[in-house]
């Protein structure tokens, strides 16, 4: 994407260089226009009279005041066509898999927003087989939802698993600050699953400059819009890790002398993240973009500006946690939430889904209270004992991420566990459903 045209004006006098930006005198330059500084991709971030400030994506190391600057006369673009499928690209949209350049139509990345009245209400369930997700936090096409995970949790493995099980026409992976090992993991996993032909990857690894990451979500989502809005396909976009994306935003804003707000993040963090996540949509012609992202946390702290702003933007969040009682990684039923589940549960799934879901979580909560009592050395009531026994089964048979069953089976398991551990009135489900599904006395 970074090619120059003949007879372009070349500037060679930089008046200011910082770690991420440079400033020079130039005229007739458009805002957000792309440029090359000694061959390095850069973008206009500020114009003050005749002084133009460029953000240099690979960094300014070694750039001298007489560096050659060429303006490209256009914002960042990506070439889109069916031949994107099965390919791996850099943050600039250049192939990194040794294959040929993509021949396609040029699109500006970070394009306009979808008119809200043209959106359709998401209504199609995305089944993953993981009961902690499908039963308690059901995902829907057109949804945007992150995994909130500590760096030591297997979030990329779960992400890959979810992507492969979900029935999508295209899977677009946006890797930001991905370790090379994780990149190879994704590549192998997708190749071995024989699914490579529907996967497109835009990869910025830890070996690449951090500021480049800023292009990855826009690249991935512009490609996604091509397939979803024009080819009416069901597109699943995976973005990992959005915390590293936000860190890159902070670097740039800091170099631009902007006043930081909470946690040294730029004041515009909310809008910046929303611009990415809101690309998730159900299109009127049937295509959809679903975004599943990863936001890594610092010791589980969700009050930090990045997860906090993310939580306000996304339609829920999924938490992974290790349940030491059963020795498995589970989807935390309390802190996880899918906001769009109401659109499908009990409608696209069996009628008892909402109530089974709520009852299960409530009883699991009772078990946690009993557990606290136990840890504090209090005597347990007979109800406490039953709750604790239920929690073990519930963790193992419902919440664990290695579960892979259909939604109906999950519901049946729920009823089975209720009947095993509780009395009819303790379950608190509406009578008509109790009469139909209750398996106990």
């Amino acid at each position, binding site marked *: 994407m970074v090619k120059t045209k003949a007879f372009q004006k070349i500037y060679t006098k930089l008046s200011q260089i910082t770690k991420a930006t440079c400033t020079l005198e130039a*005229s*007739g*330059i*458009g*805002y*957000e*226009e792309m440029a090359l500084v000694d061959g390095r991709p850069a973008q206009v*971030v*500020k*114009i*003050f009279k*005749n002084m133009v400030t460029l953000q240099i994506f690979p960094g300014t190391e070694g750039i001298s005041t007489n560096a050659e600057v060429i303006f490209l006369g256009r*914002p960042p673009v990506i070439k889109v066509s069916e031949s994107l499928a099965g390919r791996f690209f850099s943050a600039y949209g250049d192939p990194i898999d040794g294959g040929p350049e993509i021949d396609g139509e040029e699109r500006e990345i970070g394009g*306009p*927003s*979808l*008119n*809200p*009245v*043209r*959106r*359709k*209400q*998401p209504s199609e369930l995305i089944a993953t087989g993981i009961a902690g997700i499908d039963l308690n936090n059901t995902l829907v096409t057109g*949804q945007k939802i992150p995994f909130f995970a500590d760096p030591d949790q297997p979030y990329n493995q779960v992400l890959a698993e979810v992507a492969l099980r979900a029935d999508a026409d295209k899977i677009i992976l946006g890797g930001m600050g991905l370790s090379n090992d994780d990149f190879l993991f994704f590549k192998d996993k997708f190749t071995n699953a024989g699914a490579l032909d529907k996967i497109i990857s835009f990869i910025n690894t830890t070996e690449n400059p951090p500021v480049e990451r800023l292009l990855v979500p826009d690249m991935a989502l512009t490609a996604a819009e091509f397939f979803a809005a024009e080819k009416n396909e069901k597109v699943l976009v995976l973005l990992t890790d959005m915390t590293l994306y936000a860190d890159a935003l902070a670097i740039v804003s800091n170099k631009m002398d*902007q*006043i*930081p*707000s*909470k946690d040294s993040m730029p004041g*515009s963090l*909310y*809008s910046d993240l*929303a*611009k990415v996540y*809101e690309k998730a949509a159900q299109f*009127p012609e049937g295509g959809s973009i679903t975004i599943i992202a990863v936001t890594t946390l610092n010791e589980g702290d*969700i009050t*930090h*500006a990045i997860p*906090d702003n993310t939580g306000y933007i996304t*339609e*829920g*969040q999924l938490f992974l946690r290790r349940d030491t009682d059963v020795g498995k990684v589970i989807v935390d039923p309390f*802190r996880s*939430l899918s*906001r769009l589940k*109401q659109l499908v549960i009990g409608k696209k799934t069996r009628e008892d889904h*909402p109530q089974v879901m709520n009852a299960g*979580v*409530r009883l699991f909560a009772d078990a946690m209270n009993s557990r606290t*009592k136990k840890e504090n050395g*209090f005597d347990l*009531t*007979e*109800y406490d004992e039953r709750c604790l026994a239920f929690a073990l089964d519930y963790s193992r048979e419902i919440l664990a991420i290695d579960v892979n069953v259909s939604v109906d089976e999950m519901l049946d398991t729920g009823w089975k566990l209720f009947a095993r551990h509780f009395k009819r*009135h*303790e379950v*608190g489900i509406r*009578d008509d459903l109790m009469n139909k599904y209750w398996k106990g006395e």
Partner: protein
Amino acid sequence: MTKGKVTSIIANLITVEVDGTVGQNEICYILHNQVRLMSEVIKIIGKTAYIQVFESTRGIKIGSDVEFTGQMLELTLGPGLLSRNYDGLQNDLDKLTGNFLKRGEYAYPLDEKKKYDFKPLVSEGDMLQAADWLGEVKENWIDHKIMVPFKYEGKGKVKSIAAEGSYTINETVAVLEDENGQTTEVTMVQKWPVKVAVTQYRNKPRPGILLQTGVRAIDTFNPMTEGGTGFIPGPFGAGKTVLQHAIAKNADADLIIVTACGERANEVVEIFTEFPELEDPRTGRKLQERTTIVCNTSNMPVAAREASVYVGMTLAEYYRAMGLKVLLLADSTSRWAQALREMSNRLEELPGPDAFPMDLSAIIANFYARAGYVVLNNGSSGSVTFIGTVSPAGGNLKEPVTESTRKVARCFYALAQKRADAKRYPAIEPIDSYSKYLEYPEFDRFAEDNICKGWVAMVQKSKDFVRRGAEAYDQINILGDDAVPIDYHVQYWKSEVIDFIILQQDAFDDIDQNSPIKRQRYMLEKVLFICDSEFDFQDFEEVSSFFKKAINLLKQMNYSRFESDEFVNYEKELDAFLTEKKI
């Protein structure tokens, strides 16, 4: 008109060198590749105007032409505003072409061709002033009053008034003549700047009439009044939006204006999809008929986010001037404050707390002050009730937007993460939340006459039960189940009855989602009867299983149609069950 040229660009802040006079908040257009990009002046230094662009600034160049309009951001007000979906600048979103929003495409908010049946309400020779009703037309089911424009100064005599008949909105329906003989032609349309409050009314008394929302935790526990103000702070996932939607569906208001300000687009889509289908519980008509949506979702241009809340408020004030009961909902005011912060930051203003602008509290206070119950010049009354949500960073209520809002809003509906985690919805924290209106003698009088004798005292009493229950719960947790007297368990479980039956409500159940005040009163009396009763228990385990069973039966009552056979049967079963244990 003044013209200018672009001299600098940083994100959506642009400076313009102007050749003439320019006003603060004046609207101007940047000409860029045959497209006109709407912007607003936010600061002026000498010949340089600082403008915020309501669109993406991508590709704009130094030297681009700018045209000033001499007008502030104004709304077009007239029949046909209802049931529409506007963006933050009052563009009719349904009229825009294509799936994606095109830069510089604007759409007239009303229908200029549609004919309305006009009925005059004044005669020639009548003396009128601004906001007086000249006539009316039918808009959906409401009588849309055609008013003397809010901008009209002094008194004017009706020189002519159109006869009953069909007119388009731009046809003259009246001519007014002031004392100097100056005549003004009045059509069905008028303009009003969004940032200026409409104050053409007689007075603004203290509110006291209950505005029913169908939500028990609000109507019973912390009531909202017609013309009242309230806010809902809560961390993400606590259910702010679900609660606001529940209020929008069931509130006893003539019309509802929903401002989706910097929030998720899918939440607005939910309204677009459901409101044309759902019935207004009061009139049996579709909810959409009484709803106008102003939406600037989080991915739409940030500068228009600020405008969107003012657009919502001005629309509400316009309908209030017709003597209507308007409910304005804004989700979320924090996003609006953040838009102010982004701009203040780019202007390099000295920041206040958390980098928000220093005048944030003044801006919020001014905005909330525009709500209220008013007596119009003709003696009838109207109201704008405002409920805004606040999204505090990290769920911490000690942050500038929450603190500034708390100073001005009269009702505080704090959503608690703990309740949300326990799926106790709506997650309105019963002890911290408050409604100042419970202390208003005006509300007390209303409740005595319209709900039941001693209502406020009953509410206060149930709040005390909840407080005592929380204390007992703490003691039980510290000392253990065995170590506390059985009374503590009883106290705790009585508060649980109130929590499960009055405070918790299923927003997704057809019946439970809306509880009229008559039903709320019935249930509160029932629950208080249980709380006031003494029971005979052997041990604490008996206490919990007894109350759980009672709660289960009461819950079935909540899920049944009020006073239906089902409802009565559950109640009988409950009464029999209670009698067994009662002393």
